[in-house]
């Protein structure tokens, strides 16, 4: 605790450790496994304040250092302790334009909470839960304010309306620049609307955040595939934008290139989730987009990331009889958020760890009937630092399946790169951008998020967006490149 400031916390630092981490109220697992309603119900004000009182108010808070957008955690938690929830929200908004979203989807255990001093002895402070609480409070009470800033006369085009693009737009509009966001799909939000399911991130939350951006003056144009409908050069030269930010996100799904991957019933996670989340195929025939009926069927997802869990938990909610996660490494290497893995286990997802498919089997008429799998064992660490899995000879077995969803990652979408001369890319086809400034090899063009790093998280994309917004602002005000 910093001796310089007087703590508003009524609980002595010693006693704070005695308060247990306040549990997040959630829908019972048996119930929620059959609906798309949100799993976590959110803290009440009482729970939030009790949790906030656990904060040790470190002199050098490591939570903030470990936040990709640098939220002043200690300060906003202090506001909660004092009962000033609107103040807490305003504090978060200084660093984060999408708190209701990050409060729900950030891997806090790897970031702020992972470095929380409390976690050395007891459970870390529920920073994500608190962030979500204040963001929801702000929305419910309508306390958010639309900042008034003097216009600079500069115009910025943002390509893609996912987490990085929205962050750039939100930050730059507050610095007085005019911002227009171009989105390829018919809805704003990118992966927040096509990828992350309702039960983890209600679309209403995304819409509210976007409405707030509109109120601040951000313009959105849907149905524009930059690179096809208009090029980066045309935006700069003909449409008069002073800078462009490229945040086109995750690209084409990767496949395993094993026999049977083209069978009917084998989906990429992107397609499977897009049909459900964006196109509402589970409401067919009220919505026209179809998907295979999963009721009473056995479904597996291949992969161990958040996308994999989103897909299989969606399948369960659509009536799957058995729902498997097939992952070639072990629990320890799973990239998914800890809370999602925990929730998925509660809901009855069957985790087949150290297992990999080698072939998809068919009924002879083009439809999937099973995945032939092998068990794996872990060897020496590979380039990613994770232990490399290797198949165990003679361990083949078949998992009967009607639907398999492949969620093993994505590769770079080539559209912008191939239509923008002089835009440097790396070996894997992603856009080259400075890690500090997000500048690309083209003057006035910045990039960030998955199109630079490959598949990552919402908050890392937002961190890149924040850095990009700062350097775009600098470029627009100084003219220096």
């Amino acid at each position, binding site marked *: 605790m910093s001796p310089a400031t007087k703590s508003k916390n009524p609980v002595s630092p010693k006693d704070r450790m005695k308060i247990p981490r306040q549990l997040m109220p959630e829908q019972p697992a048996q119930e929620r496994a059959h609906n798309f309603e949100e799993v976590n119900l959110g803290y009440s004000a009482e729970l939030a304040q009790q949790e906030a009182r656990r904060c040790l108010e470190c002199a050098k808070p490591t939570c903030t250092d470990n936040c990709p957008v640098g939220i002043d955690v200690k300060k906003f938690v202090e506001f909660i302790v004092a009962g000033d929830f609107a103040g807490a929200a305003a504090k978060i908004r200084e660093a984060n334009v999408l708190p209701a979203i990050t409060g729900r989807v950030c891997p806090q255990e790897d970031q702020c909470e992972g470095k929380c001093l409390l976690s050395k002895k007891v459970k870390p402070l529920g920073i994500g839960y608190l962030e979500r609480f204040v963001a929801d409070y702000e929305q419910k009470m309508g306390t958010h304010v639309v900042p008034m800033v003097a216009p600079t006369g500069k115009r910025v085009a943002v390509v893609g309306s996912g987490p990085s693009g929205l962050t750039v737009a939100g930050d730059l509009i507050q610095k007085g620049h005019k911002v227009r966001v171009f989105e390829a799909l018919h809805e704003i939000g990118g992966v927040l609307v096509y990828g992350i399911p309702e039960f983890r991130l209600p679309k209403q939350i995304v819409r509210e955040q976007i409405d707030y951006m509109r109120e601040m003056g951000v313009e959105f144009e849907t149905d524009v595939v930059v690179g096809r409908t208009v090029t980066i050069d045309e935006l700069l030269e003909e449409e008069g934008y002073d800078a462009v930010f490229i945040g086109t*996100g995750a690209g084409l799904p990767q496949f395993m290139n094993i026999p049977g991957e083209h069978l009917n019933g084998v989906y990429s996670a992107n397609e499977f989730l*897009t049909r459900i989340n964006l196109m509402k195929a589970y409401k067919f025939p009220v919505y026209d987009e179809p998907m295979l009926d999963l009721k009473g069927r056995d479904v597996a997802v291949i992969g161990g990331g958040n996308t994999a869990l989103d897909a299989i938990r969606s399948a369960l909610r659509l009536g799957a009889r058995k729902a498997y996660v097939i992952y070639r490494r072990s629990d320890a290497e799973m990239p998914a958020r800890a809370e999602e893995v925990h929730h998925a286990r509660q809901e009855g997802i069957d985790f087949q760890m150290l297992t990999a498919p080698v072939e998809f089997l068919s009924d002879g008429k083009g439809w999937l009937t099973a995945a032939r799998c092998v068990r794996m064992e872990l060897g020496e660490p590979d380039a990613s630092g994770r232990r490399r899995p290797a198949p165990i000879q003679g361990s083949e077995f078949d998992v009967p399946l009607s639907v398999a969803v492949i969620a093993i990652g994505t590769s770079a979408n080539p559209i912008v790169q191939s239509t923008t001369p002089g835009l440097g890319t790396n070996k894997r086809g992603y856009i080259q951008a400075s890690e500090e400034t997000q500048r690309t090899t083209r003057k006035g063009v910045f990039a960030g998020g998955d199109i630079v790093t490959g598949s990552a998280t919402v908050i890392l994309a937002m961190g890149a967006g924040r850095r990009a917004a700062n350097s775009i602002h600098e470029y627009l005000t100084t003219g220096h490149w």
Partner: protein
Amino acid sequence: MFKIVHAEFLAPGIKRFVIEAPRIARKQKPGQFVILRIYEEGERIPVTIENSCPERGTINIVVQAAGKTTHLLNSLETGESILDVVGPLGKPSDIRNYGTVVVVGGGVGTAMAYPTAAALKQAGNRVISIVGARNQGLVILENEMRAVSDALMITTDDGSYADKGFVTDKLRQLIENGTRIDLVIAVGPIVMMKAVSEMTRKENIHTVVSLNPIMIDGTGMCGGCRVLIDGKSEFACVDGPEFDAHKVDFSVLVQRNTMYRDAEQRSLAEYQHSKPAEGKCAVTAPQGVRP
């Protein structure tokens, strides 16, 4: 919203729409397509662009009624709007002077073949066009195709117009007559493209087909449009839609296109059952149109 400034039937069940879409009109090149969604609960479907007028800011699309969405689309009239139109998507046709090019259009595929034929002619090629349809009523864009072709041949399955037979009969004649063919481009039903491909493979004639697999976003995100090309997964929306015909696994394409047949039939049946018998919204399933 994208306004329909003109709508007309080219044949029973095949309708041309002139749509206000200035951005797309400026950029559209032969071989590309759009994806559209008619209303909030609607699905996204890929649709052929016939051509565009950058000055007026309009594109022409040609739609054949097959399922619910295309039937619904074909019930729209001048002055109505389409909620979303996005494009132009896919790589444009590779237009160069090849020498002699045979352009084969089957059914509504002729609308996709037409701008490519026109561009190839413009590029100095000798263009021989073969247009096939089930019957006389379904022959579309005859005059347009004639205007951009050095020779135009027409076949109908039932012989009700021009020559009875299939487009492959005409292609075989050309080959047997010793016509030098540098490139064949075929756009139409999968069975037709497959038959053309098998014929030209034997003759070692480079052949390009335009594939129309199931597609959702069309922008290189979902991977639903994957096709098997030379044993590898490629994506029609960003790698295509045109591919080297001799590398395409047509049987996988046919099989994957049947994935939602039950749902599609149910949608169409419910739509036709619910539609008003008379009036503006009524959709008459034109006779002689294959579902």
